């Protein structure tokens, strides 16, 4: 087994262990007790607004690619 497999395999196992351990606990009160949490029951911004933003992002990326 080479060093690449040992290092990245180790990272994978450690990360999975962290995920399965930490995932069972609730987030800290700093995360939960705040006013600006996402309200998953409603969409504050319309899909059209998101689509418009995404078009701007795509346009920006294409423009940047042309300029560089």
């Amino acid at each position, binding site marked *: 087994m080479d060093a690449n497999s040992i290092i*990245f*395999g180790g990272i994978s196992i450690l*990360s999975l262990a962290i995920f*399965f351990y930490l995932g069972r606990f609730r*987030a800290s009160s700093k995360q939960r007790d705040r006013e600006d949490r996402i309200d998953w029951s409603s969409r504050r911004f319309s899909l059209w607004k998101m689509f418009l933003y*995404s078009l701007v992002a795509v346009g920006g*990326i*294409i423009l940047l690619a042309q300029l560089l």
Partner: protein
Amino acid sequence: MSNHKALNMFGRSGNPSLNAQTFSDSTKDATFSAQATSSTMTLEGTVNKTGILLVLVVISAFYTWSLFFSSGSPAAVMPIAIGGAIVGFILALVTIFKKQWAGTTAPLYAIAEGLFLGAISAIFEAQYPGIVIQAVGLTLGTLASLLFLYKTGIVKPTENFRLMVTSATMGIALLYLVSMFMNIFGGAGVGFIHSNGLFGIGFSLFVVGIAALNLVLDFDFIEQGSEMGAPKYMEWFGAFSLMVTLIWLYLEMLRLLAKLRSR
């Protein structure tokens, strides 16, 4: 938020035992309360189901991976890979629109995507040995790091964060779609996003970043779902959401590493 609102938010359960009355009654009767808890979404249940989906992905990926290395030809696995991707896409749409079916469709989605991932990974591995374990390590490392940052409250998702991440995700999907159609109809495609130049690598880094930030949205959705007592099937839906993001992140990691190695 009331439990009734929580049900509206996460989709009304098809289970007749789950209605708005369920939660108000549960406060009066301790025995009933325990039953109600076992029929609502929990963090532990979601994590366990994510584990099941991960195992299914690995098992089905192993099949196409082995098939590729035993035949030595991409042609042997490509029909299965493309079939897996198409079936996976259809199952993902079904799961999104019929959350109640997630208990059945999410495992099937994981198996279909596993077939696709195994084939793609094997093709990349044959070209760049060692790339797959690097991509797996970086993907899972990102998952664990962001979970830690989310749980400790260092990363705080807000409505503006959601707007930014969702818009960027839609933009990337749009760009890939345009590129795909241009390729199909004989055009040059949006070449720069696939190039191994500085811009191509920068673009891949941006996409990896956005895919990673989608994980934070998934964590928040799961956390709030369990807090609000969403129906039990939402555990499968939460695990499915996490799996979709992880698969996307893994593929983008593979592309990024391949671009770096091909320079």
